[in-house]
Structure formats: C-alpha cells, structure tokens
C-alpha cells in the first residue's frame, strides 16, 4: 500500500503528521473546498440544491457521526433515525423557548442534547455486543419515535403533532422558516459539514480514535493494553450522537421546515445512514461523504434520467429505481466490500503505477 508519494520529504514531525501529508491530496482537498464553496453556489439551480446538495450535506454529517460509532468504534447502531429526531425536537424546543437565541447555537446545543441521550442509550453497549447491541439501538429508535409522537410537550401540543420551524436569521439572511433562501442554507450546512468533518478527522487520528479502533478490533486486548472500554465506548456514542443530532436539527430546521417524527425519522432513515457508511466505507471520513453522495444522488439522477430524459412513467421509474439502487448496493458489496473509499484508494494506487508513476 502506498502511504507516501515518492519525493515528498518532511523535515519536521509536525509536517509529517499533518492530515494530508501528500501534496497532491492536499491540493485535491483545497480544490474540492473551492468547488464546494465557490463553483457550486454559482452554478447550482434551486432544484439541484434542494434535491441533492442540501440533503447530501446534512446526511453527510449524520454519516460521519455513525461512522465514528460503527466504523471506528465497532458498535453497530440502528438508532440513527431516532437520534436525528432527538436533534430535531431539541432544536424545535430551543427555537420556540428562546426566540432570541442564535440558530447556530440552537443547532449545536441540540447536538449536545442528542449526545446526552446517545450516552444513555450507549450504556447497554458495555454489556452487549454485535447483533444484540443492534437490537438495543433498534429499541432506542422505536422508543424515541414513539416518545415524540406520544408526549405533546415535545411538539408544543400542536394539533397535527407536526413541528414547524419558526423564522430565524443568521447574519441578516433568513435561513429557516417560510422565507428561507437556499444559498445561505447551503453555506451554513457546508460550513458545519466541513467544520465537523475536520474535527472528526482529527479525533480519529488522535488518541481517542486509536482507542476506539482498539476497541473495535478486539475489545479484550484493548482493555489489557490499558484502554478503558467504558470511556471509549461512551465517548464514541456521545460524539456520534452529537453529529447525528446536528444533522437531525439541520434536516428539520433548515431543510424540511416542518417535520413529523413518524415519517421523517423512521427506521428507514437509520438504514439509509447505515447503507451510506457501508457503501462509502467503514472507518473512513471520506467514505462517509462518498456514501452519502451515492445514496442521495443516485435516486434523483435515476429519476431524472428515466422520467425527464427518457419520458418513462413515474411509477415504473420508481420501481426500477428500487431495483437499480438495490442491485448497485449488492454489486458494490460483492466487488468492493470495503466500500467506495477503498475503491478510490485502489484506483489511486493503480494510477500511481500507471500512468502517473512519478
């Protein structure tokens, strides 16, 4: 495996241990940032922003969160939909209880609330593992959805049980509520995604990430070499839930505007996020993003291709979409069980052998 490009010499530890030690990678990173921050906002249409980019940015955060828990710490969770709901409802309660609070603070605080809830639901992970833990988190999913449906306090006793985001502004731009504009929302989501992704990347490279990975690879061995499983597992649950909660708050406040828990945060969402990280690549931040892009964009592209370009009836296209996405998932899992991130790594290596051998 190629870890270092030939010809890159580092003279200090600091330079050697940076996030992107290879110059080409660093260039790629900054180019993608440039494209995301400048080129896309200038060129994207309202439809593509609403249908692809915003959901991608929001689910990208959730995928990173779940990847921290499942990919890095090895704890399978099917409760992401429920944790997203916690984020959304916390954000709603904060927004309505403190109308003057900045929306960004609301979103971050709802992440904090979700982290706390995630911590509580993470406690069983100390005793149970694998499939059994998956079932316990599944219980969290159903319990949380039931709770938000049942207790009127969470939706301020509105007649329909829906929560609706009131209007909030950030730097003078309306980003939630009826008059929200797409572009400011895009920048808020993008900014948060980049910020959280950088933090996640650094967390996973540091001591904490190494502890998580030790637990993932073999928890008994990790315990013997001095990793505290209680701390490692609970921090993974808390940080993962923080990410997922922020994603839920953004999905509700910035993207959907009105949410009904049974539909927006159902078990389907948990599976969607799980598929993102499985397809993208477990234990990879880049993989989380690629997986999110794949799962969000693929159905929209297929729909546009089949219905708009080829003029097929919508229902046939919708059925075909299920089959094609399902087939692609299976094909990917058979051909590249480690996800798109691994595929990308292999492509890079092959390219490096030929034609870019220097």
């Amino acid at each position: 495996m190629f870890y270092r490009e030939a010809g890159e010499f580092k003279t200090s530890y600091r330079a050697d241990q940076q996030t992107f030690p290879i110059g080409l990678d660093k260039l790629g990173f900054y180019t993608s940032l440039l494209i995301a921050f400048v080129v896309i906002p200038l060129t994207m249409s309202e439809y593509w922003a609403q249908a692809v980019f915003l959901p991608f940015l929001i689910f990208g955060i959730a995928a990173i969160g779940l990847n921290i828990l499942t990919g890095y710490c090895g704890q399978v969770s099917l409760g992401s939909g429920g944790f997203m709901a916690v984020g959304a409802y916390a954000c709603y309660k904060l927004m309505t209880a403190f109308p003057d609070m900045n929306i960004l603070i609301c979103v971050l605080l709802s992440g904090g609330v979700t982290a706390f809830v995630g911590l509580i639901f993470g406690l069983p992970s100390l005793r149970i593992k694998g499939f059994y833990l998956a079932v316990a988190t599944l219980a969290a999913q159903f319990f949380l959805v039931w709770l938000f449906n049942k207790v009127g306090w969470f939706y301020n006793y509105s007649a329909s049980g829906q929560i609706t985001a009131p209007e909030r502004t950030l730097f003078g731009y309306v980003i939630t509520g009826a008059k929200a504009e797409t572009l400011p929302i895009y920048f808020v989501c993008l900014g948060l995604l980049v910020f959280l992704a950088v933090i996640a990347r650094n967390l996973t490279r540091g001591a904490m990430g190494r502890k998580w990975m030790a637990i993932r690879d073999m928890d008994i061995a990790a315990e013997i070499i001095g990793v505290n499983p209680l701390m490692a597992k609970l921090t993974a649950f808390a940080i993962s839930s923080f990410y997922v909660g922020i994603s839920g708050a953004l999905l509700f406040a910035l993207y959907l505007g009105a949410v009904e828990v049974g539909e927006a945060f159902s078990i389907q969402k948990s599976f969607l996020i799980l598929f993102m990280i499985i397809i993208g690549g477990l234990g990879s931040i880049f993989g989380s993003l690629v997986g999110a892009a794949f799962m969000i964009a693929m159905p929209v592209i297929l729909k546009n291709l089949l219905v708009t370009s080829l003029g097929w009836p919508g229902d046939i296209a919708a059925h075909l979409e299920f089959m094609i996405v399902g087939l692609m998932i299976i094909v990917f899992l058979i051909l590249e069980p480690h996800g798109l991130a691994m595929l990308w790594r292999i492509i890079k290596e092959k390219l490096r052998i030929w034609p870019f051998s220097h």
Partner: protein
Amino acid sequence: MKLRNALIAAFTGVCVATPVLADLVFPALTYRTGAYAVSGIPQADGYSDYFTMLNERDGGIGGEPIKVVECETQYNTEKGVECYEKTKGLGALVYQPMSTGITYQLIPKASADGIPIHSMGYGRTSAANGKVFPYVFNYPANYWNGASAVVNHILELNGGNIKGKKIALVYHNSGYGKEPIRTLEELSAKHGFDLTLLPVDHPGQEQKSQWLQIRRERPDYVTMWGWGVMNQVAIQEAANIRYPMENFIGIWWSGSENDVIPAGDAADGYKALALHAPGMDFPLFDDMKKHVYDKGMAAGAGDQIGTILYNRGMFQAILAAEAVKVAQKMSGKADITAAEMRVGMENLKVDQAMFSNLGLPNFAPNLSVSCDNHGGAGLVAVQQWDAKAKTWSLVSDFKPTDMDVINKLITEDSSAYAKENNITPKCL
C-alpha cells in the same frame, strides 16, 4: 470529495431546465408506488383523465391547452419537496399535493413562491382561514367538518343523545390522522361521549393490538382516519373481530372500493363520509369514454374508472378547471399566471347549474369560496358499502357540520400560526 465533484460536473449537463411553455401547467404529485399506492393510483388517474378529456374535447380551458406534469412522491414528504422544486419552474398554476404531510411542507414554500395549493379535503385544516393562509385552499370540506359529520351521524342514529356512548378513533399516526382529535375532544365535551384514541403507525399493516383493544372495550362506534393499505387492513381486522360494520365510519379517505373489496362480504354495511356522489351514472362519463378511454389515453392501467377515489381525482380537476375559468374571466386572458389562479380560486362559486352543465347533476353540493373562508361550506354526506352489489351509495344528504365549534378552532389554530410566523392576517 473528489468523486463528488466529478459527479457534480457530470450532472450539471443533465440539469438544464425545461423551457417554460405557454400551457396551463398542473403538476400532479402522485404516488403510484409504495404503501399508499392503492389510494394514490385512482386519484391520480381521475385527475389526469379529466384534463386529458378537456384537451381532447375542448382543446383545453378557454382555448389554452393543459399540461399535467406527474411527479412520483411515494407519499414521502422529502420526495414531495423534490417534486415541488422540480415542477415549480414550469409555470405551475396550482399544487394538489395529495398528502397532508407534503401539504404542511409546501405551505410555507408555496406561499413564498406565490403558487396556490389546493388540499382538497386534507392538509392543514386551519388553512380555511384565507387571511392567514392566502395561498392555501382546502374547500369543499376539511377534517374538522369530517369529525363533526361523523358525530352528527351518530347523533342522528341515536335520536340526538349520545351521552356516555363510547367512540373510538383509529387513526394514522401522523399529522393527517391527528388532525381530527382536537375537534373530537371538543365535541366529546359538548355531547358527553367518551373518546378512545388508537394510533396506527405508518404504513398501517400491523393493527392487531388496536383491534384487540376494540374487542375488549367494545366501543359503540369506531371512526377511522386511514389511508392506503391501512384502510383495508382495518376493515379486515374489524371483520375478524365481528365488529358491527354499520357502526364503523371512515373519513372520506377511508371509503373507496379498494378499501372494502379485500374484506369481501364481511365489509357489508361499512360506512364512510363522502364529499361527492359515487358511481359512473353521469353524462360526463360518456364524454370521458368517447374522448379518453376509447382512444386509449386513460392514465395508469385504466382499471380504476368510476371508483370513489377516481371520482375524487376528477372532482379535484373539475374544481381546478372551474377556478381557471373564473381566473380567465377576471384577468381577461387565457394564459393565466399562478397569482391570477389564486384570485380565481378565491372567487370560485360552484352551484348545481354548473354541475348539470358539466354533465354531473347532483354530483356534489354547492360551494363558494371567499377570502375569509378558504374551506367552503363543509357539507358532508355519508355513504355505505353494499358488498353484494359491490357499490357505494349515499345514505344521507350533504349536511352542514357544527361550524360553531369548528370556526372557533380554526381561528385559534390559524392565529397561533400567524403569531409564530409573524403574519398579519389580511386579504390579498
């Protein structure tokens, strides 16, 4: 990140917007797939067949051809939003989201974009207050009219006294199903009946525990706010516990052929509310046959013609077409805009003479819309299923509902919305 950008570059080629055409564009957010397809297909077929007929027979409305743009939502709000974004640039005149969840989602968006929404008999009930919701219409009747109509029907059966009776509400655990609860609670205080709430989670295929509870508690009446596959499961379960079908009353969304036929003879006597007459016994269907069915232009598989929900879809299209006529008259041009359409909808008057002209005598009650009242008159009838003849028939007239209770709730809920969203109630 790199891959994403490569993909994006590839898509920008695909996403060239379709040019705006000079047609009357009606986006249809349909769901022909998923757990709600059984209810979605007939409605979508009726909606688009009526417009096809107008195009074939009259060349559109006022000489302006109609274009129906279908977009599949699977009854999913996120897909609904995607469909809205996709179609709003085509010059959409009015949105019929055909889903309460999507309606809630679109109310702020469409109001900001200035495109009217017609959520006919569903959606946000308090949108009946046109001063707070200028772009949203829910005529001819809303869920609270429905709740009141159920209670009125039960009152009628019991000679006006239902004190101490037990009524259970089996509802889809969503914004849609929860809408009637507040009204039913008010009415329960007013008339002294006990209300039991039995939520059924999406998609509604699993209702054993709810019906077990009904078997145990034996409520005198059961009413249902169901949709899609939930309806047929509920009727089947009611049959399984031998619940007397004539005491089981569904909302107008829980009373179509597709809901009762799976239960066979056991569904005989099941009741549902009605916004319009059932069946194909109208002269209009001759035109439909001549211009649409015989030419093979029917939408979908063409096997839903004349069912309750097909007629509902047609009714939606008729009301939209009539509003276009009003708008064309008021603006003096055939090619109207969404803003003119909104004015047309707000000044819509429908009477029996108009229904006779359309070839639908006595199809539905009179209706008049105004800025104060986007909800119409709220006249609701009751229909009953005859399993032997496999037909629905109206068992009551279109009767008024308890507007004292409903108007108070509408004012309360809409002013709460206005306050939350800083809207000053006024007529546009």
